[in-house]
């Protein structure tokens, strides 16, 4: 999971921390009832993740309403949940998730940002989007409203797939081609790939916090008749403190289950 908090003082940090903690707790506690509409086209796992993100939204929203210091706080959330060969991808906001498969980088999430919405609707060109002054405006965030619409999808993982989760601190500065190149160059060393990506963003004048997680997937040799997937999950957190520390991304390592 990657959560990039927003809001004055340290409210952003509070929001992102609340998101990670609430989601984790609700995911692990399988006895809890699900919140929100059950989406039949998605698996029970994915529905539980959706439910946990909705719960986090309510928790942050309510905290913001109660506490004037935290009013208007919010956070992005991008999460993957891996169960065997199946990966759930769920997100809100502009922290991204990429899949790197057979040397190709595919973005699995669509940013909930004003610029990307304008782009999707054909109102602006890609060049205009890159130069837009509204790049930092997001259209959905956990905690911004009473209810939240969460995007979710399911993917089948293949051997040697890599999953990259990151905050906009990386993607505002580093282009997809460069992300792809860095990940592939450091194929056997996810930790180094994360460090180099963060360095690259900083070298290009990045001022925002950066969180990068790279998950390397390997299919295990069949032992007991079934195939098990081994996830080598490596977490890279490289946050360069912003002058005032206005936003504070929270991070957690990718969840791996068999």
């Amino acid at each position: 999971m990657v959560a990039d908090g927003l809001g004055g003082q340290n409210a952003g940090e509070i929001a992102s921390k609340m998101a990670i903690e609430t989601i984790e707790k609700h995911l692990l506690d399988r006895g809890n009832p699900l919140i929100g509409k059950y989406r039949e086209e998605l698996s029970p796992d994915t529905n539980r993740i959706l439910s946990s993100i909705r719960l986090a939204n309510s928790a942050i929203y309510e905290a913001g309403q109660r506490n004037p210091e935290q009013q208007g706080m919010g956070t992005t959330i991008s999460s993957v949940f891996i169960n065997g060969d199946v990966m759930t991808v769920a997100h809100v906001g502009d922290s991204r998730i990429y899949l790197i498969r057979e040397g190709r980088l595919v973005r699995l999430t669509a940013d909930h940002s004003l610029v990307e919405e304008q782009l999707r609707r054909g109102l602006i060109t890609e060049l205009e989007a890159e130069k837009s002054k509204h790049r930092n405006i997001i259209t959905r965030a956990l905690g911004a409203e009473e209810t939240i619409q969460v995007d979710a999808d399911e993917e089948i993982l293949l051997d040697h797939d890599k999953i990259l989760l990151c905050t906009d601190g990386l993607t505002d500065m580093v282009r997809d081609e460069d992300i792809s190149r860095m990940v592939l160059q450091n194929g056997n060393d996810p930790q180094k790939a994360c460090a180099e990506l963060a360095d690259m963003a900083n070298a290009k004048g990045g001022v925002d916090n950066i969180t990068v997680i790279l998950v390397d997937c390997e299919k295990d040799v069949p032992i007991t008749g079934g195939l098990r997937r081994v996830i080598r999950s490596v977490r890279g957190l490289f946050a360069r403190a912003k002058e005032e520390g206005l936003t504070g991304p929270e991070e957690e390592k990718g969840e791996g289950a068999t």
Partner: protein
Amino acid sequence: MDMAKLVLKFRDATLQEIPVTKPTLTIGRVDKNDIKIENLAVSRQHARIVKDGDRYIMEDLNSLNGTFVNGKKVMKCILRNGDEIFVGKHTLLFIDEEEKPIEMRKDIDISLAEKTVILDTKKKREPIPPPGDSQATIQEKPSELKGGISIISGGIGQEDIELTKRLTIGGKGDGADIKLKGLFVGKIGFIISKRPNGFFITHSGGRSMTKVNGVSVEGQRELRDGDIIDIGSTRMQFYTKK
């Protein structure tokens, strides 16, 4: 000589007229501001207007939702007669009828704050008109693909399974959508993934391989109408529907 003034409006209603008498006029949600706007979309200290000689300069004070002048998000800019300043859901109309040498608007600080902000949801698409004309070409949602699996032989009570889920699982396990049998068939034997551009099959587990038209599935393989899928002792056919 008329003094510059601000007209506070909410939608079409004029709420207040504020003459700009002080060298600095602050705008925000709390009491200590010169212009107090009680709305959650407004930051406690949202923006200020500073008199600089005969010019008035609007500065955003790192507000959460930003300050927009004539629909454009600005951190700092020189105000001109008739400018509309959007703060949260309110508008401040700037009126300064004194003749001045024409000055091109310059955003004094074009390096916008990198801080991410949440767009005020209620006003979502109003304050920021897209550049160029706004002939929106809203994408039509492509009609959804429909496909299914019909069991030809070796099934367990199932005949036809519609592929309505993002991922449909075939295997021996309890969670499988397509129930399979056979000693070497995995709990999850194969997974069919429904994408906007088609259906794809992946072999998942078990020593019994998943075959499409007699060929073992490696990685992900796109399914075509009429493809025959074999696993263990089960034979089935993939079909698409219009």
